[in-house]
């Protein structure tokens, strides 16, 4: 059929099964918005900032496993979206982002709202396109969806000039993709897998190092089976929370800069690291030369460039984690689980020595208590998003995760302002679960305009602000490493968060006691509209334990021991 470029975008979305598009209109993308007005194949959610549109699409993608879709205009619309693209790129989140561009005849003339969008998005996308002819549009859109969600997932950006969206051409989406240069590996090499299993059977102190790739590959339940069968202890990265259930006896905890003592000590003492979909990020490894110093490394990853990038892999296996773990399960009989009993005991001794905990030694509510309390009250019924800072680390440490895709947070880029819009996307993708955003008094102001979106579209995100009147994580580093010079981190002056939420039509609570918190949370869940719960917490609490940047994992700053919990 002969249709315009703008109609092609709509048709392609429908063919790809897109049900929700997050976006913000503007001059160069108006032809497409005109077609959005006319169609009823998917819902468009108008965010109040382009950055939030991308984060919402990310939250949607992370919670659903589907490609998140966002649409923005040229120039400032696009540049506002760049942070979101970079965030999705760092955390391997599948997105297709469509931006408008000035007409072809104006490209290169410094036209109104013109910017070299694909030049800017190149280093922060998996791939990008400038569409110069509507004839190419069906193929490009089909490639975009395929590339975004295959191999190591990531954002794909498609920049479409205004005259191309007006151009009328033949549309046929039923085409075979011919991507001769892009063929991601999926099956791992069987001989390498066999060798790896033999190494596991021979190891004395093996350790699973579980990464976010497991969640991307939907392999959590296969990994659970492998852990169960071999009874080898496991640590999770920040991105992998929920791969194992919190009460799985083989799960030690999160490792890394704010990982538990036991997790970091296990990594320091293991003789065989079994890395599944993890990329040895500096926040995980600490000082590289001291990381798992006496261990061989099995590294399973779909991205060949992740293997031996930072830590040399003795058993490199390029492949999709799900397929490789299934193959590993097949030959797991050669592993004798009783062999690691002593090793498991060593680890539980580490955990007894310095458990992940905190002390109730303040008049004010402890921030960790809030996380634990929400865990007790909502547990599996909630999906947890976060912003970035101390609250984020406490949420990673203390929430009892039970399933993959329950935990949605900005790991690689560490984007403040991610949480609220992401939690909206999560709620849209997963309406039966309560969508919680743990945030801080710093982060929440970075995308608080999304109150309007949440009110308009009735997306009942509960934002729990752990309010310490500080940019807490920076304040913590200043306290520890800058001789308590709290430069520009004191947020004593702040809005009335209750009124702020109410001004948009949401609800707000200010909470200073535990009883008030329970009541506020209960009320917010019942009212089922967007809420701010402003919790006044202890101001000077630090996230512990902590491996100082560049330090060794076994050299942690630990919580000072006290008599009472």
């Amino acid at each position, binding site marked *: 059929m002969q249709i315009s470029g703008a109609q092609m975008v709509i048709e392609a979305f429908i063919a790809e099964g897109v049900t929700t598009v997050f976006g913000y209109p503007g001059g160069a993308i108006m032809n497409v918005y005109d077609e959005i007005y006319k169609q009823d194949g998917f819902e468009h959610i108008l965010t109040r900032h382009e950055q939030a549109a991308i984060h919402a699409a990310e939250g949607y993608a992370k919670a659903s496993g589907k490609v998140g879709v966002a649409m923005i205009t040229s120039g400032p619309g696009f540049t506002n979206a760049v942070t979101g693209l970079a965030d999705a790129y760092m955390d391997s989140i599948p997105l297709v982002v469509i931006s408008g561009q000035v007409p072809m005849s104006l490209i290169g003339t410094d036209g109104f709202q013109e910017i070299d969008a*694909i*030049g800017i998005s*190149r*280093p922060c996308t*998996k*791939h990008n396109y*400038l569409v*110069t002819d509507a004839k190419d549009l069906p193929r490009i859109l089909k490639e975009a969806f395929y*590339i975004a969600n295959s191999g190591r997932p990531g954002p794909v950006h498609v920049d479409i000039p205004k005259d191309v969206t007006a151009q009328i051409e033949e549309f046929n989406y039923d085409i075979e993709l011919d*991507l*001769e*240069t*892009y063929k991601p590996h999926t099956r791992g090499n069987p001989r390498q897998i066999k060798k790896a299993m033999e190494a596991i059977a021979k190891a004395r102190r093996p350790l699973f190092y579980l990464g976010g790739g497991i969640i991307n590959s939907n392999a959590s339940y296969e990994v659970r089976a492998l852990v169960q069968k071999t009874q080898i202890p496991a640590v999770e990265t920040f991105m992998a929370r929920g791969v194992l259930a919190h009460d799985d006896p083989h799960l030690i905890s999160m490792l890394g800069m704010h990982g538990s003592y036991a997790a970091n000590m296990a990594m320091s003492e293991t003789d065989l690291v079994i890395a599944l979909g993890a990329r040895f990020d500096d926040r995980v490894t600490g000082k590289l030369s001291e990381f798992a110093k006496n261990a061989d490394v099995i590294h399973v990853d779909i*991205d*060949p*460039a992740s293997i*031996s*990038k930072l830590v*040399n892999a003795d058993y490199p296996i390029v492949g999709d984690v799900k397929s490789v773990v299934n193959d590993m399960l097949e030959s797991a009989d050669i592993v004798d689980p009783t062999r690691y009993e002593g090793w498991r005991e060593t680890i539980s001794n580490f955990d007894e020595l310095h458990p992940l905990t905190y002390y109730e030694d303040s008049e004010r509510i402890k921030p960790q208590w809030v996380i634990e309390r929400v865990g007790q009250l909502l547990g599996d019924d909630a999906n947890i998003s976060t912003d970035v800072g101390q609250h984020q680390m406490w949420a990673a440490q203390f929430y009892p995760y039970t399933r993959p895709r329950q935990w949605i947070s900005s790991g690689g880029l560490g984007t403040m302002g991610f949480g609220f819009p992401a939690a909206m996307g999560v709620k849209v993708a997963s309406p039966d679960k309560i969508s919680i955003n743990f945030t801080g008094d710093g982060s929440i102001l970075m995308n608080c305009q999304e109150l309007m979106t949440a009110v308009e579209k009735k997306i009942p995100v509960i934002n729990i602000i752990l309010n310490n009147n500080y940019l807490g994580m920076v304040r913590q580093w200043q306290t520890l490493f800058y001789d308590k010079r709290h430069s520009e981190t004191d947020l004593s002056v702040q809005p009335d968060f209750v009124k702020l939420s109410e001004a948009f039509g949401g609800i707000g609570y200010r909470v200073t006691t535990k009883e008030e918190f329970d009541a506020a949370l209960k009320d917010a869940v019942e009212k089922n509209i967007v809420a701010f719960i402003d919790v006044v917490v202890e101001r000077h609490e630090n996230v512990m334990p902590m491996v100082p940047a560049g330090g060794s994992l076994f050299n942690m700053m630990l919580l000072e021991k006290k008599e009472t919990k």
Partner: protein
Amino acid sequence: MTESNERRVVSVIVVNEASVLSRITNLFSGRGYNITSLTVAPIPDSKYSRLTIVTAGSVRVIEQITKQLHKLIPVLRVYEHCDMVEKEMALVKFPVTENLTDIDTLCRAYNGKIVNSSENVVIAMVADEPHRVDNFLSVIKRYNPKEIVRSGAVALER
């Protein structure tokens, strides 16, 4: 694993399409790799181009460069050369008043000759291995070259 910064030659086959070259050069600058020289030309009768990149780095860095290049969607193949034939061309402009016989003899020793002459200058070309081109360029200094241009290397695995 050696950490010394060795000179390496990498050939990359890419789809001929807009902005593919900037994808490659962005990757080098974004990840802090060096480009010593870069030569690009289309492969005849195909939709591909071939790039020859001369770079330097440790074994680990070169391995990363190869893998990261391969990750780019329009990249078909990446070769890290070890046993190759490598050539580079140079053009040099000399004043016509210099000893042209000497210059011509030197050029011939490096697979070259004088290729153009005009009222005031001659242009000589040589084509040889890059280190031999280095030699040539240092030898001809005494003939007061006015302008020198090098092509960057091309290489084929034996």
